[in-house]
């Protein structure tokens, strides 16, 4: 790798780390895991820098999302014991937005990897279904079904009455 490439790469990382780290953290919800996820993606980007430098951010993001899904899915296949404590149920008043956001934030952390990736791409990166499908390497239909399940889970976590008082839940 030439010195110029290293300089270019360092500049790219310096400029874009904050944005990329936000994505990694939104996915993992954990400082250590987010750093590891991002560092792995950046290392892969550096190894292919001459080929991907024109769309480095897109490449790194794709790696982040795909590594997140495959790594977390792999982890979930290992033998484990079932948690004895069921997830807490909340009765959230939608007018208390701070509480609602905290509850939603917790619920986001509990989503399965693929659903969480879809939600982050859709609502943090503001991508449409087709673009989300391209990033994740799956069909738009899969994205739609994963998004639907994820939103149902989030709605369930917030509670059935959350938005009824405001008449906005449909």
């Amino acid at each position, binding site marked *: 790798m030439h010195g110029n490439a290293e300089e270019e790469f360092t500049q790219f990382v310096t400029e874009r780390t904050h944005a990329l780290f936000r994505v990694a953290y939104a996915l993992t919800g954990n400082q*250590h895991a987010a750093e590891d996820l991002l560092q792995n993606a950046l290392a892969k980007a550096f190894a292919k820098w001459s080929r991907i430098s024109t769309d480095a951010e897109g490449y790194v993001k794709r790696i982040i999302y795909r590594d997140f899904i495959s790594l*977390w899915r792999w982890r979930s296949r290992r033998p484990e014991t079932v*948690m004895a404590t069921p997830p807490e149920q909340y009765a959230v008043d939608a007018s208390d937005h701070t509480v609602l956001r905290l509850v939603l934030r917790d619920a986001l952390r509990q989503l399965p990897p693929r659903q969480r990736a879809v939600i982050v791409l859709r609502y943090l990166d503001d991508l449409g279904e087709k673009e989300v499908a391209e990033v994740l390497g799956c069909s738009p239909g899969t994205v739609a079904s994963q998004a639907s399940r994820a939103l149902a889970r989030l*709605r369930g976590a917030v509670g059935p009455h959350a938005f009824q008082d405001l008449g906005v839940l449909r």
Partner: protein
Amino acid sequence: MSRDFEYEIRDALVDLADEGRSVNLATAAIRDGKHIVRRRRAVSAAATFAVLALLVVPFALHRPVNRIVQPGAAAPAPTTAAPTTADPGPAGTPAPTIDPMAGLVPLPDGMVYGSIPLTGGYSLVFNRSTGQYVKLPYTRIVPSPSGSTAAVDDGRRIGLVDLDSGTVRWAAGPTPTGITFDWSPDGSQLTYLAKGGKTGTVRVTVLTVAKTVAAAVGGDILCPLTCASAWLPDGQAIAVSGMDGKVPIRLVNARTGSPTKGLERVTGVLANGHAVTDDGTLVVTQLGAQATVTVAATGEMILSLPGAADQTYWSSSHELLLVRRDGVSLYSLTGEPVATYPLPPGTLATGSSLPTLMRG
């Protein structure tokens, strides 16, 4: 789906994304990227060699037997298998093999590396029962101070790994909400923080290793931002410190969860129980980008060392060991740097994914 609900999801995601502390990973990524390139070249060279071997060796062994043999000529010497190690040539170097013992610089005062995070989501973990390091697929893993068990955290739960077999038992109990866990000094339990009953609160939780079950001890503790828990060297108390570094450290009885006194004059993040001297007189905490030494009884700060340190330990002679990205630094109580020990080769050294230490 209502538009309002989508807005709330968006806001919650933004909150979550902003919760982390981004660190510049350029140097570490370049180092790891170079490893990937070298490994790829070595694998490519090995694969080429293997393909050639597959093509040539059978041909050499199974040549038609009706070849012309000159009368009186010596019989061909038996062929021997080609060496299987590939020489990648000057274009590349062999893939790095991780031998932590070979590159390990001994630490002072009988300390050893407990776990060493590597690239690719793996860590080397010290198995006390064998005296060897084992490689396991976890980035956050801390071995018990006794026995051959290690604790792992996948962001949602705590697991106990048997270092002899590599199997993991995920604990039943409240979901962890903090980013740290800490072993009790005798290794029979560990503590972490779970969500409290009210918003902005946490509960100290104790996981009993023998049962693989965790339960909250005591009531809610106010924690406006992310908090960390640490088990003190006396084994009796657990400390809860706030990541914002402004709220004094709170102590609870490890068995009953009732509040106790001892560190109420100390602020900052307590990285682990080893950050308190065995006699409980001195505490090193992380305050912003500094490691600060405070006298527990008076709250007097007697030393500030620049530079963030993920893990802090006291030696038995009241010298301070700080684990940073550039190595393990030993400081005297006057703040004089005594020595710096390089991290083991192959270590993944990100902002907070650094090796842990333990007494050997």
